[in-house]
Each structure stands twice: as C-alpha cells, then as structure tokens.
C-alpha cells in the first residue's frame, strides 16, 4: 500500500525525520517499507532543481505576434521583473488578452532538467534558451508530464491559489511515497491514519488532526430510520453494520489538485470528485465506501420509499458488476439490493446500473461492515478481488463505519458543494463487546527472555491506545476496537517487544537440557549413498516431483504391456500446466529429460537422483495423521555418451560409447560398497521400458530392488534422445538400504599362506548366465575357493554353435596350510564335476 509522506504528515509530524532513518525504524517494527518513491527531492527519477524550478503566478496573457496557437504569458516568479514565457498551453490560450490574473503555476528556468512533454515515454531534456517563432524564450510553465507527475502533457499544471510565489517547487509538490508491504491480516494498518497512529506510538508524538471527528464537526446524528431510505439487514450474520448517508445535490467534477496528487501517488486514478472522495477516505481511514446513484435506488413493490435490503443471494441470482462482467451468485454470497434487485455485492463491488456518473444528482453513501471470512470466500469464488474486498478480507473495525461516512460527507460538502442530511441511518446488529485481556506482564519476561520493566510495558501499550490498569499480578487490558488482531496475552507480548525494539534484545544460548539424542539412520544412509555414487563418477540431479502423465505413458511403448505401478497416481486439482500435473511415481522421466536437455551441450552424461516417489496407498485420515500417500525414496541412474571424456590418446576403437556394462560396472561396485555383491540375485528382466534383451532385475531375497538396462529404442525416441545406448536404472532405495543394513559384513581370517592361482575355461550354453557359473564355482569350492573372476568370454567354431566359453581366474587358499598339488587337483575335479552336473558345463579343450 502506497502512502505519501505528505499525507501522513497531516496526522503526525514526520517530514522532519530523515527519510532513511524513518524507513529503517518502520522496517524493524513490522511496517515493512517495500519500496520508496522520491518525487522532486534528490534521489527522484527527476529531481527538481530548487534554484530553477519554482512556483510562480501568470499575471497576464498576450497573443503571440507570429503564431496563432501560441501565447505570451507574463509570469511573476518572485524575481525583480516578470518573465515573458512562450507557451501553447490551451488553458492559458483561453486567457488571451487578459491581465490582472493570479494563476499559480510551476515555472522552470533555462538549465532546468525536465521530461520532454512532446515525445512518447520518459525522455529527459535540459531547458535551453531559444526563440519560438521569433520571440525569445528562456523559461517555461510546466505540464504534469514535464515534472514527471503524470502522463498529462496537453496542458500545464495549476497550483492551489494559496501557493506562495517564488519558492522552490519541491517544497510544495515534492514528496516521498512509502510503499508498505505489511504481512498479515491487519485491517488497522491498511490506512494512512492507521500508519500515522503507529508512528505516533513509535516516536511518542501526538496525533494532530482527527479525521474521525467529522460526526461532531457536521453535527450528524445516527438513527435507525430516516425518510430517505428504507434500510434492512436481512442477514446480520454476514453484515454486522450498515450505515447510509444522504448526500444531496452533488456537483460532479474533477477533484482538486491536492487530492488528485495524493490519489495518484497512492496508485489510484482520479476520476470525479465523488468517486475520488470514496477512494480517498478508504485510503485515509481504511473503510471501504460505496456511492450509489440515489435516483436509481428503487422502492419495494407498493412503496415509494427507496429501499436497501442487505441479504444473501438466491442461488443463481445474477448481476452485472462495475467491471461489466455478468456475475452469478450462490446462497452464501451477500448482496446489497434495492426494491427491484441487486445493486452491489456487499464489500466486494457495486453493480453497473447504480454507478455514480456525471448525471448523478443525489448520492446514497454506504459505509458498512461485512463478515470478513465470507467476503474472502465470495471474492475467491467469484475470482473478483478489489481494494474493498482486500480490506474487508483483512478485517475492518465495525466502529469505523460511521466516522468514515461522516468524513466522506465532510469532503463531499467541501469539494462537491453537497448538502448532507443531518440524520445518518445506522443499523448495527453486530456491535462487538469491548474486548479485554487479562495480562500477566511476567509473560513477556518468560517468552522474550529479557525483563521489560512493567512501567515500560504500560507506556508502550498505552501509546498503542490499549487501556491499561496496571494493578495486581494480572492486569486488565482494554483492547481498542480497531485492534481485531489482539485477543490473547501473547499478542500483547508482541506489541511490547516490537515497540521496545528487537535491536535491544541480546542473543542467548539455550539454557536447557538437551532432548534425548537420536540418529536419523534413513537420512544418514541416504547421504552415504550419495557419497558412494558421486565417488563412482556420477553427478547428482534433483528433478521436479511434478511430471506430465504423458511421460509415464512414454515409458511403456507397447500398449499391450503397460507399466505396473504400486498404486494410483496423485493428481493435482489445480496444476500450473499439464506438464506438471501429477506427482511422479518414477524418477525416470526426470532422468531422461535431464539427459535430453544436457545432450545439447555435453557428449557424456552420468547422473543419479535420490528422491521420493508418490502414489496413493489409502484414504487420508486426520485422526491417524495419515495422508494416504506412500512416499518411498527411489534411486535412479542414467549414463550415456562417451565412455571417457575427450582425450588426446585414443581408446579402443568401437568401444567409445558407454553401454550396458558401464552401468553394470557402477552397480557392481556400488553393491560391493554395500557388502551386497554376493547377496543379491541378478536375472534377466522384462521391464517394458528397457531393451528386451538388455535388462536385468536385481533382487535381495524375495524383494525386487529394481531394474537396470539399456533403454528401449522406442522410449529413447519418445524422449527425443539420440541414437546411442542410454543406460538407466531405477531401484527402490528403501529396499536397497534395508538390504544393506541386513547384510552383515563378514571378515574372514586372513591366511598367511600363498594362494594358488589357476584358470578354468568352461564351455556352457549361450543362455547360461555368467553369474550362475560363477556362483556354482564359489559354492562347490567353498571354503577354499577365495575368488572367481571372469576374464574372457569366447564364442566361435572351437566351442561350437550355441555355446560360449567362459574363462575364470580362480584363487585357492586354506587358512592353516599351503595347498599341495594333491589338494589342488582334488579341488579342481570337484569344481568341474559340480558345474558339469549343475549346468552341463564342459572344461574347454577337454
């Protein structure tokens, strides 16, 4: 909310405070100033040179001898002699030939920097001495645009008649506009007067004008009834108060300059005096007002008295609002209606038909109060957010309605020559009790950790207009009606703390026993896993949890073979876009999209992600704190591209691209790091996302950890990836970590005796997995066989069709002796017999 400092200064003296110091103080106390606009003063986009831009007075206007559209204005700028200024201002043109004038204007000497009024946009230029159609010119009278006040460039700006002549313009029109960014639902801070009240308390300064006193100044009386309108609040639960003020014979015209400037600086567009005054009072006091064209307000059937009925809408009832949108209402929306139908949505927006315009003669002024949650609901349902609904939605003090109506009436009388009926209709069914709080000032000490003296607490609370009876252990505090946020003792602690000033608080170390210490093993294990994977050369990525349903489909290219999900997906009601409408049930789309975007720049990608997936697992149940969504952690990996970065020595030709065994190697090492290498089972997998012949599934016991392999070429194409092997893995990290935790590390005795090494080449069926042969050798040779390492795979004529030869390097060792020739030959025979019987393997060459 933008507030000009000059406006604040009406109620509390602030212009003597250095602006930066004021701003910082306000920031610290919770009145955050998000932005500061400087007008005219140094630091402004266009500072007004106090020596060259002055207030002045046009005293006569003569025709220009050589130009029809121009005139020569004689200007008194406070100098010894008047200055003749050439100008094309249309309003001065109208004074041609007149003298004895007293038109107050903004005057600029040569050398002054101004905006160029004749070009689009904001272009600065320095005023130069020149001749205009033969007449010398070394000064000018300025338009709003030239001064940077508004875009109005057609005519010059006129200052109030009371403006002194020859003073720097910046002293008259210069200003600072504070843009407050106040968090929280504080209706009492949504106004100039509300902020002034806070500043008064902070600086211990008295408030000096009372905009709330217009009732007395106009001598108005509130009454339940008056002739001018028949008022009824049919639904008092949604409308605690409604006042109607009769304003007769308004003269609809533009507002005076000072009001226009204030509204502009506050970010509003001046329209006419009547509309401007309702806006002005809303800004000044925080009470939204609405002006109805009285001539339009219809009586009830059979009556001649215009009527206003505040009631819930009938379901489906319709009205066109001021913004020319046709609105349809439900039964929980509150309407302002007349004898015929709706004329406004209470607290949100008026109807188009009852709008005040140039033809309006009498105005019925509404100042009301509405149930704030209902206003917010209506506003959200209708997607209609206005200054009024925003203020009501932050809670407006119902006590404010009548003083605000009177304040607007006062301004209408002054600026629109209106006559105000002495009786204001005031229906106030929801008048709240005065709120009191029993407050133990020691609560502040307990919560804040410092002792704020009790008389200081009293001073602060009183400065904020709280009533304080500081007697006994528990004080009775009376809450001002506008402090709708202050209900609990703790709320008073905050008031005391912030005005006392947090800069006076020391920092302390928590002086308490530590809670029982616990480790977070799942997180520790997860972080350990990250370290292992980084050590294996993979880069960590974190992708979006929200994905596109299309991407899930892309993972299953064969419609006959959809993916098996652990549960239904979690879908958003209000996604940003279809691409981000579903919580992921797999990490693969994130990995594939990351590969795609990076392959534009990189020829080698090796990444992993550890993150949650999400799927429906049941019904939400608040009582059991159950969300009905399972969120297990998953692990994904993706490698593709060059086996190693570009280097000056050539690698083995034909093996430059990473393939399945690169990923497998990473996984083997990972499993070894987790002591799982001999405890998991590898099998050929049949996951639809993978190349059917290059997919493995890894299990621990009967738990499937997940799949890995080369991406199916159709999936690769669906994700726009180039024609090269893309190797991916997705495992359930919870299962993997559980397996690692369950798999005890076994440290055998280290034998001091030299091992015996020998190689065995075994011919097996093509279909027999290498891992099976290895396992068979290990089992048959236990405990003497220490290591079985595959070092060659051979296919060809020598071993025959449909067969392959697997060559293993074995090492034998006993803990207690050197193995003899006899031991070794017995062991070898046992191994060969075992693989022959179990797998039909033959010793190669035998």
């Amino acid at each position: 909310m933008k507030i000009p400092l000059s406006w604040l200064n009406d109620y509390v003296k602030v212009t003597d405070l250095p602006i930066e110091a004021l701003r910082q103080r306000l920031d610290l106390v919770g009145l955050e100033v998000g932005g500061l606009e400087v007008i005219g003063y140094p630091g402004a986009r266009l500072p007004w040179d106090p020596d060259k831009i002055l207030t002045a007075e046009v005293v006569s206007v003569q025709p220009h001898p050589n130009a029809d559209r121009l005139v020569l204005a004689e200007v008194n700028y406070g100098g010894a002699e008047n200055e003749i200024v050439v100008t094309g201002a249309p309003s001065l043109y109208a004074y041609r030939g007149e003298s004895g004038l007293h038109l107050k204007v903004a005057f600029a000497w040569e050398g002054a920097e101004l905006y160029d009024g004749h070009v689009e946009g904001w272009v600065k230029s320095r005023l130069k001495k020149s001749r205009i159609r033969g007449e010398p010119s070394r000064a000018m009278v300025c338009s709003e645009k030239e001064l940077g006040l508004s875009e109005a460039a057609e005519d010059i700006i006129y200052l109030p008649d009371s403006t002194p002549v020859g003073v720097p313009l910046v002293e008259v029109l210069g200003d600072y506009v504070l843009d407050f960014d106040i968090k929280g639902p504080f209706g009492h801070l949504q106004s100039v007067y509300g902020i002034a009240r806070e500043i008064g308390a902070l600086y211990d300064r008295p408030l000096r004008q009372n905009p709330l006193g217009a009732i007395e100044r106009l001598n108005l009386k509130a009454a339940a009834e008056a002739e001018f309108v028949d008022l009824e609040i049919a639904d008092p639960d949604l409308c605690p108060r409604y006042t109607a003020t009769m304003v007769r014979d308004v003269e609809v015209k533009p507002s005076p300059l000072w009001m226009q400037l204030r509204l502009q600086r506050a970010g509003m567009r001046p329209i006419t005096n009547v509309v401007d005054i309702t806006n002005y009072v809303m800004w000044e006091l925080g009470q939204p007002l609405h002006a109805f064209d009285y001539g339009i307000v219809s009586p009830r059937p059979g009556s001649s008295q215009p009527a206003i009925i505040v009631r819930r809408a009938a379901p489906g009832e319709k009205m066109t609002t001021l913004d020319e949108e046709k609105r349809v209402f439900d039964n929980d929306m509150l309407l302002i209606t007349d004898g015929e139908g709706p004329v406004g949505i209470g607290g949100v927006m008026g109807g188009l038909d009852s709008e005040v315009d140039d033809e309006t003669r009498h105005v019925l002024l509404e100042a009301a109060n509405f149930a704030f949650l209902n206003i917010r609901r209506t506003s959200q349902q209708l997607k209609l957010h206005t200054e009024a609904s925003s203020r009501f939605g932050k809670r407006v003090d119902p006590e404010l309605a009548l003083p605000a109506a009177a304040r607007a009436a006062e301004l209408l009388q002054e600026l629109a020559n209106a006559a105000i009926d002495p009786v204001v209709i005031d229906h106030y069914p929801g008048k709240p009790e005065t709120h009191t709080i029993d407050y133990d000032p020691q609560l502040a000490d307990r919560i804040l950790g410092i002792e704020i003296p009790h008389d200081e607490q009293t001073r602060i609370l009183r400065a904020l207009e709280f009533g304080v009876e500081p007697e006994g252990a528990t004080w009775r505090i009376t809450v001002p009606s506008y402090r709708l946020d202050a209900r609990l003792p703790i709320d008073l602690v905050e008031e005391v703390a912030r005005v006392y000033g947090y800069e006076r608080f020391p920092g302390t170390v928590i002086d308490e026993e530590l809670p029982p210490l616990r480790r977070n093993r799942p997180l520790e294990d997860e972080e350990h896993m990250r370290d292992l994977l980084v050590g294996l050369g993979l880069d960590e990525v974190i992708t979006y949890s929200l994905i596109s349903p299309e991407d899930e489909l892309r993972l299953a290219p064969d419609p006959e073979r959809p993916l098996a999900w652990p549960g239904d997906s979690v879908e958003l009601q209000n996604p940003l876009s279809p691409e981000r409408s579903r919580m992921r049930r797999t990490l693969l789309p994130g990995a594939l999209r990351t590969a795609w975007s990076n392959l534009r720049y990189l020829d080698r990608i090796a990444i992993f992600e550890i993150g949650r997936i999400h799927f429906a697992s049941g019904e939400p149940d608040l009582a059991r704190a159950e969300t009905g969504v399972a969120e297990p952690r998953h692990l994904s990996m993706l490698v593709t591209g060059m086996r190693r970065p570009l280097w000056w020595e050539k690698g083995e030709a034909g093996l430059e691209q990473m393939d399945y065994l690169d990923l497998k190697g990473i996984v083997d090492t990972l499993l070894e790091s987790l002591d799982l290498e001999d405890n998991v089972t590898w099998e050929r997998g049949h996951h639809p996302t993978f190349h059917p012949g290059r997919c493995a599934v890894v299990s621990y016991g009967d738990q499937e950890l997940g799949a890995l392999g080369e991406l199916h070429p159709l999936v690769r194409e669906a994700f726009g990836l180039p024609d090269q092997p893309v190797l991916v893995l997705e495992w359930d990290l919870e299962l993997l970590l559980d397996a690692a935790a369950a798999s005890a590390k076994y440290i055998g005795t280290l034998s001091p005796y030299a091992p015996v090494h020998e190689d065995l080449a075994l011919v097996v069926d093509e279909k027999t997995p290498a891992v099976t042969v290895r396992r068979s050798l290990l089992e048959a040779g236990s405990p003497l066989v220490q290591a079985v390492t595959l070092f060659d795979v051979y296919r060809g004529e020598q071993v025959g069709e449909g067969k392959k030869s697997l060559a293993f390097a074995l090492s034998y060792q006993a803990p207690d002796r050197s193995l003899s020739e006899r031991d070794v030959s017995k062991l070898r025979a046992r191994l060969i017999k075992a693989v022959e019987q179990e797998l039909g393997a033959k010793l190669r060459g035998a």
Partner: protein
Amino acid sequence: MSAFAELEQVHEAALADLKTALTTQALDAWEDRYLGRKGEITLQARQVGQMAREDRPAFGRRVNEIKQLLEQAHASRLEVLRHSELTERLEAEAIDVTLPGRPVVRGHLHLTTQTLRELYDIFAKMGFEVYEAPDVELEAYNFDLLNIPQYHPARDMWDTFWVEGGDQQRGNRRLLRTHTSPGQIRAMRERYPEPLRVILPGKCYRYEQITVRSEHQFYQVEGLAVGPRITMTDLIGTMTEFSHLFYGRDRRVRVRSSYFPFTEPSVELDTECILCDGEGCAVCKYTGWLEIAGAGMVHPIVLANGGYDPDVWSGFAFGAGVERPAMQKFGVEDIRLFYGNDLRFLRQF
C-alpha cells in the same frame, strides 16, 4: 722377449685398450679378451708351467697382480659407463610432463544437497536432529493446526497445489505442502512430552509460475525448539550463531518484527549482505541486508495442537530457504538453474 716383458706388454695393451671401450658391450668384449677363460692374461698364467722353476713364483705373483689391477680398472670403467648410459637412456625417456593426465571422472553433489548438508551440520552442532515429514500433506497439518483456518487471510501467503480425489472433507483434503511447518505438528505429536530440538528439511511446492526468481518447487529448512524455558533471546542467539557459521563470523544480524500465523511474536532475521558487506547492492536490493529466516515464538495454539501445554512449555521456530542462501553465496541469479539440472552449472560446485 722374455716372458716377463711379454706379460708387461699385455698389461699395457690391456690398459690402453680399456680406454677405447666406450660402451658396456665393448667393455664386455675387453673383459673376454683379457680376463676371460681364454683371455690373454689367463693364457699368460698358463705359461708358468714352461718357465724356469726359479722364475715361477715371481711370474705367478706378477700375473695375479696384473689380473687384479685389470679387474679393478674394469670395475671402475664399468661404473662410469653404466652411469653415463643410464643418464642417456633416462634422457631419451623424457616426456612432455605438461600433457593432460588420463582423465578420472568425478561426480558432483547437487548444490541443494551441499547446502542442506551445511545446514544439517551447523544445526547438529547446536543439538538439532533432522526430522522428515511428507511432501503430500493433509490440509489440517499444513494450515488449520498451524493456526491458519480456512478462508483466513493468512492463507493468502501461500498459493497452494491441491490434490484430486480422496476424502474431500475439510481437514482431510490433501495438498502439496507449501512449507515445512506441518512437520512441526508431526514432530511435536510424536515426541511429546520430551523437549524438542529438530530441523525439518524438505521439498515444498507453491502455485507459482517458474521465473528467474520463483519456482513451484523449492527446499526449506524449518527449525523447532520446545522446552520449559525457551525464549526469544534463545531464538536470536541460535540464529545469530547460525548466521555466523554459515555466512561468516563478522556479520551482524538484525531482527525485524513480522507476521506469521503460527508464531507470536513473529520476527524476520537478516544478515549483513555478504556481497556488499552491507553497503547496498543488487543482491540485497540496496538495503545492505539479506533475509535469512522467518521465525518467532511458537504460537500457544500451535503448541497446544502439538500436545504441549503453552502455560508450561514455550518454543521457537524458524524457516530458512535453501536455494536463496546458495544463490547469494555464489552469485547465482536464476533459481531455475537448480532444478533445470544443467550439468554445466551443477558441476561447478
């Protein structure tokens, strides 16, 4: 010529020859020629049998003498030659030691992970344990139990993604958590009546268009301390310590009054801008200060919702960003770089 003279002649010739042996091969040939089994000295020694008996001892001594002298000369010559040959070979083996080494591929932790770990470590020093809560939350946990009822204006502070389906009854409605604060209720309800010191990290989601400055997905770290005597000055002390450890020992911290529905009093904590040292720059929007956390004393209603009697217990809570401090530290200007996962970006950390 006498046998003695002949012996001396062979001796001299051998010494002269030795000087011409410039390689170890030549030296080996010299050794064969003079000292080998058929070498000239050996042949000389064999002549002893044909000599006069009285000459034999002297001749034999001389032969042995000469043999020893030649062996010594050979050994020292061999040493010299080996040394110079090794020097030569090593010189020939020289390579360009500035060539790029054989590449070793190294992985990188995501910048978010690195920042989270830093936060875990700092708060672990102060006794805070990491507590994790779900991403998909119940409305009641994300809002109502945190003193933010439906339609309450405070809800405007969070633009929310709502989840389809399930039980759409109030409180049971589901959403993507807009902050890590729902974990406060979960931690309190699980741990009551123990005192509590936890941090709650996690992914949060807001209905916001993705721009240079805003993301619909981001991380937060929430902190919560509950005990019989936890105070605002404890909060200030804890966050000042955090700021000193994270941003630097010499940076001042300031506390501003603020508003959050789940804390009362509420504050925001700033640290002096790390880029301009408080002078004012684009990163701190010319204020000289960077916001490090929103915080406050846990609202009595929230404490009660967590099971702790607000007349007996008190607590503080704070919420800090994860990406923002990392951006400030490294001068990253575009938050989209975090979850856009451009590896050229991520590999710099």
